[in-house]
């Protein structure tokens, strides 16, 4: 592969504290290098980025794009497909779906926006094989997936018994068996109760049979996460999500790991960065907006983002992603079965629910966020509050919890709201007055810079999930993933938000591993993708004892034990990350 030079662009690389300097970026053999030899320069492909913005390739650390719940959404929503479809080209497949897209379209549309990496947010262990089968069909993106463990029978049993050695061995074995990357915890203790038509309503309510509380599960998983040195913090979808008043539960949940020290133990060669690439957070709260409802009912519903943001501003162990609501069509899909049931009761429309053997559950429900709806309007404001009221952008990540708040294709709109106060004011005028009356957003005049946006969409998601050895920076040794936007920062007019949206939507260039994948918003090549997973070292005797337990309870599973793990052949370019090797 010929070397590549991205010449003369305004570079925004927060992990190297580069803020709009005019620089050249060199890529050789798929990696960022400090420079090229004269002979290499002669053969190199040159992209003229004069007057353009250059950033590392986009990283989405929380999105739902593969697996059985996404597929349930596709089954359920023909109406989501027929009005949103793209014909094939010489190199791309056709595809459809505004919120529940076909696999091909997912890859293409991320790349067209300048993203090169996306992590699937919730994989039920039993559905890992299906998830990997979809991920290997998603073109262009480097991917990984988080394993849902918050209501897992073995996890609950070991944590209740206080058998941390077996619990650690279980996590290690499960990550390897299912080729997954980090721990996801969804409505801990509550989803298990949903199997009995119940939920839990507080952090100290023990669930049925296992008699374990959400607090015990969160604490246990956070401790194990750090003991094992897992790349990312424990990833939490808090209890009571989507209910007025749930912000209080979230506040309490965030405090649980406040004394737990982050420990990330990866056998990787970090890319060169000025900022320490290792992780310093011990909890990663997802879709904060959905976890930040205040009030006691839909009548006195209001934003509870402020108290949560105040807490996060004072506590460095927390990082969040926003779960913004850009209005329009969405499909709610989550491992939190009971919360989907509540949404379905509200909408009166179709929905689906699923219980996954001994592991977890899930639900899917189509949803439309309307500007004239008071609650939806507050949710729009709350999503932006999450990112604007948290002072340190290194504690925040921009997402829409795609497709729960809206599809990822609306990220450019969210970026533009963050950068433009006048665009926010225009939206206040278009939506229900509750947006202004019941949130703090109206009083915020902060306008984010391109540097801030690069933190929220590249540097921090990569840092949070422990991928800075490859992603999120333009440091030497990083993957050659670069986005060029046709935005001249010296002539940037944030009041012209329509142009900003257009330019973020269609990258001038998306370069993936040194290959030009997108030019002027069109796919021009299909670089290979990789799948990352954590290979965690633990004590072998603990693993043996744990496996005996697993095999004993496997009689309750609907599949045989030998069909349970996902072999590597289901992955494209499987890339194991060795974890916990120092101990």
């Amino acid at each position, binding site marked *: 592969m010929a070397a590549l030079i991205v010449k003369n662009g305004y570079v925004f690389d927060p992990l190297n504290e580069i803020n709009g300097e005019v620089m050249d970026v060199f890529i050789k053999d798929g990696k960022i290098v400090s420079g090229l030899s004269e002979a290499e320069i002669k053969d190199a492909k040159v992209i003229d980025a004069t007057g353009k913005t250059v950033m590392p390739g986009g990283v989405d650390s929380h999105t739902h794009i593969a697996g059985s719940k996404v597929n349930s959404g596709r089954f*359920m*929503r*023909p*109406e*989501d497909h*027929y009005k949103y479809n793209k014909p*094939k080209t010489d190199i791309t497949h056709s595809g459809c779906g505004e919120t529940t897209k076909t696999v091909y379209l997912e890859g293409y549309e991320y790349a067209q926006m300048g993203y090169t990496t996306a992590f699937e947010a919730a994989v039920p262990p039993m559905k890992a094989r299906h998830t990997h089968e979809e991920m290997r069909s998603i073109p262009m993106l480097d991917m990984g997936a988080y394993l849902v463990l918050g209501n897992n029978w073995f996890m609950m049993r070991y944590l209740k018994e206080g058998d941390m050695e077996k619990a650690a061995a279980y996590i290690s074995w499960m990550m390897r068996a299912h080729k997954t990357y980090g721990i996801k915890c969804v409505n801990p203790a509550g989803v298990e109760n949903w199997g009995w038509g119940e939920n839990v309503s507080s952090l100290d309510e023990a669930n049925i049979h296992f008699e374990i509380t959400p607090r015990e599960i969160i604490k246990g998983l956070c401790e194990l996460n750090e003991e094992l040195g897992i790349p990312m913090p424990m990833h939490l979808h808090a209890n009571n999500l989507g209910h007025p008043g749930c912000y209080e539960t979230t506040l309490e949940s965030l405090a649980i790991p406040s004394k737990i020290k982050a420990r990330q133990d990866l056998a990787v060669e970090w890319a060169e960065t000025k900022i320490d690439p290792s992780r310093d957070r011990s909890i990663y709260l997802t879709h904060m907006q959905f976890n930040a409802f205040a009030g006691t009912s839909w009548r006195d519903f209001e934003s509870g983002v402020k108290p949560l943001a105040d807490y996060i501003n004072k506590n460095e162990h927390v990082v969040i992603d926003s779960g913004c609501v850009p209005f329009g069509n969405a499909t709610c899909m989550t491992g939190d079965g009971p919360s989907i049931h509540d949404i379905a009761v509200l909408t009166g*429309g*179709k929905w689906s629910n699923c219980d996954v053997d001994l592991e977890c559950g899930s639900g899917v429900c189509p949803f439309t966020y309307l500007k004239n709806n008071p609650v939806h309007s507050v949710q729009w404001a709350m999503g932006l509050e999450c990112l604007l009221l948290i002072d340190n952008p290194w504690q925040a990540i921009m997402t829409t919890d795609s497709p729960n708040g809206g599809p990822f294709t609306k990220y450019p709109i969210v970026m533009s709201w963050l950068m433009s106060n006048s665009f926010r004011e225009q939206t206040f005028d278009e939506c229900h007055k509750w947006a202004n009356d019941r949130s703090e957003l109206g009083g915020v005049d902060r306008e984010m810079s391109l540097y801030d946006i690069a933190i929220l969409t590249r540097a921090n998601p990569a840092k949070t999930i422990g991928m800075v050895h490859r992603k999120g920076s333009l440091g030497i040794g990083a993957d050659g993933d670069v986005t060029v936007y046709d935005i001249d920062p010296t002539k940037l007019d944030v009041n012209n938000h329509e142009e900003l949206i257009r330019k973020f939507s269609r990258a001038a260039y998306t370069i993936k591993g040194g290959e030009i994948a997108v030019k002027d918003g069109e796919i021009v090549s299909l670089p290979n993708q990789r799948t990352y997973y954590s290979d965690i070292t633990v004590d072998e005797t603990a693993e043996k004892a744990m496996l005996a337990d697993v095999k004993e309870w496997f009689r309750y599973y609907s599949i045989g034990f030998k069909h349970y793990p996902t072999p590597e052949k289901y992955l494209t370019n499987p890339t194991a990350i060795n974890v916990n090797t120092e101990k």
Partner: protein
Amino acid sequence: MAEVKLTPNKEIDLKVEADVITPDEFAGKGKSEIEQLLVWQGPSQYPLSDFFDVEGEGGSSAEDTTIVINGDVSRVKLIGAKMTAGKIIVKGSTGMHVGSQMAGGEIVVEGDADSWPGMEMTGGVLHIKGNAGDHVGSAYRGSWHGMKGGRLIIDGNARSQIGGGMTGGEIIIGGSIENFCGIRQTGGLIVVKGNAIRAVGAEMSGGTIVIGGNIQKFTPGMQNEGEESDLEFEDIKCSGTFKKFRGDFAIAKNPKGIVYAGKETNPDL
């Protein structure tokens, strides 16, 4: 008023998706430009002239453009889809989705129409002089937001799911229908002069359905509210005496859907 004449020039095997046959697309285009408009057949695109001989040219605007299709196009789908103005006259039968999502103007089909005529239409007039298939003026599969406005007239019979998820506009059917007419209807008017088989107004919570003929199996969630004679809905008149029902109580606590069933044709109700 400019007129474009399309004459089918061959037997079509795989059905053709010709959503470009609208006054909006033809307006401002000459003969050769119209011939070059692309239509889908299976996975490939072909110029319109592969299937039609084109005569005449488009007017200065959609409103000024009339399209006359001279012959049978029952293997051509999406004629007049999303049109906003002007007129289309089909001197034969059409395929699926004629006038689908149309917002204005007029379509006259002198023969029959396949399923999905006027799907999710929001305005204009769609008149089918023969029979129609299923899903007349209804929502697309998976959606409950059907026809919103305009008028859909079928002189002959139609089949099932007429006006599914309908929220506004009028559907008038001269002949008989089959099942689930007005399912999930929340607004608008459906008038059927002939008979229906079953589930008229199932899950409706608003809007009005008038069935002049016999309903074989009546919807269980409907409650009788007496009788009314010689109904008038602005310019639409239904003479005779009707039994009046409200429903569907199976789906809502206080539904506002109204079904009128002919008194003499439904002696058992």
